[in-house]
């Protein structure tokens, strides 16, 4: 496993969930499921998070919050939509205030369906996100090297 996959830190945000999935997310940290054995920490800080776990559909009020949290996370980062409401809007899809799933606002990498999503499914989703995270890290490192090389060529042209 790569550098990021060994230490993914989670940020959990409740879009407009009924709290069913949130309780399952918290259940992952309990002794029965113990996500810390994968090096996962449930951090509350977007600045330090690698994986954004969102439960519930997105409503008009939580839209700006989700966008801000996503923009505050440093690259590389992945988004996991937990529960059917976060995937598609679920049972609340046709409500007047619901915009739909999380992917209507920010790009989602892994979908974990279920009502409520079981802790096993959430952990499985997060572990799948790790592979994506590692790929994104490699892309990000390549991109950074590319930018540095371009910068080098540009500064050479200046001379």
């Amino acid at each position, binding site marked *: 496993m790569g*550098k*990021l996959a*060994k*230490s993914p830190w989670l940020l959990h945000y409740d879009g407009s969930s009924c709290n069913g999935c949130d309780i399952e997310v918290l259940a992952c*940290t309990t*002794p029965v499921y*113990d996500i*810390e*054995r*994968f*090096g996962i*920490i*449930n*951090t*509350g*800080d977007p*600045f*330090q998070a*690698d994986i954004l776990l969102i439960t519930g559909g997105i409503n008009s009020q939580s839209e700006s919050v989700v966008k801000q949290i996503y923009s505050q996370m*440093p*690259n*590389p980062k992945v988004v996991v939509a937990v529960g059917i409401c976060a995937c598609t809007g679920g049972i609340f899809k046709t409500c007047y205030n619901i915009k739909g799933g999380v992917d209507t606002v920010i790009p989602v990498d892994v979908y974990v369906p279920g009502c409520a999503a079981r802790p096993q499914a959430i952990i499985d989703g997060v572990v799948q996100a790790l592979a994506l995270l590692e790929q994104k*890290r490699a892309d*990000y*490192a390549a991109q950074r090297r590319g930018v540095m090389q371009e910068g080098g060529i540009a500064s050479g042209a200046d001379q």
Partner: protein
Amino acid sequence: MTEVISVVAYLILAPFAGGLIDGVGRIVSARMQGRKGPPLLQPFYDIIKLFTKQMFAVNSVQLLLNLSYLIFLAVAGCMLFAGADILMCLFVLTTADMFLIMAASSDSSPFSTLGAGREMIQMMAYEPLTLLMSVGFYLATGSFHVGTIISGEYSAVLFLPGMLVGFFFITAIKLRKSPFDLSTSHHAHQEMVKGITTEMAGPTFAIMNVAEYYEMVLMLGLVAIFFLNKNWWSWPLAIAVCLFVYFLEILWDNVCGRVKWKTLLEGCWIVTLLCGGLNLLILMLIR
């Protein structure tokens, strides 16, 4: 020559020793909660990951202030491990903490400003005992010089048992363990996001973590000088006591909830007065 070797060893090995102790601590903590816990090398994975993350700075000065925190902590540790003046070592330690407070105050996050305020309260709580402790070492051994303190006939703890109890309190604050992890916590779900580290991301946060490992080794080093004397057997004894103190801190961390700042201040000052002050008074009378 020995001083040079121990300073270089401290500078190179302290982050690794700190990381390993933290790794063991996290496993022990998890076992106390009936969990399996992370791998032993998890702190190193975390730091390597943080260095590969995007440099996400809210301003240009925070990284510099965090680096100053790291450097001043390393200097304070070097002074201790070189056997220099303990009073100066503790002053540099306080200076280092001031840089962390400035780093946290430099950004606009209300959580981090609140954390900086709490960190200052923590400093007020632990500072009196550290000063009393160095005076205690002077009265017990006749010197502020760490080299002289650790080469005495008897361990300093025989004269300073109260100071050691008080220092156990202080170590909980410095290692950011419950019930005194007010300014920032290693645990999730704090009432103010991550306190002083809220707006530190990627490499900046990694530097802060490395600095914490230097600090951890420095604090355990201070515990060790209570026990070191000129006999060789005092060294393994001191290391064993350091590990035992760290175990007690983890235990305390797990059985206690976070206290309010007033309780912290009152608790620490009462302990300082009762353990430190009384110890000092008795020492002054018998010496």
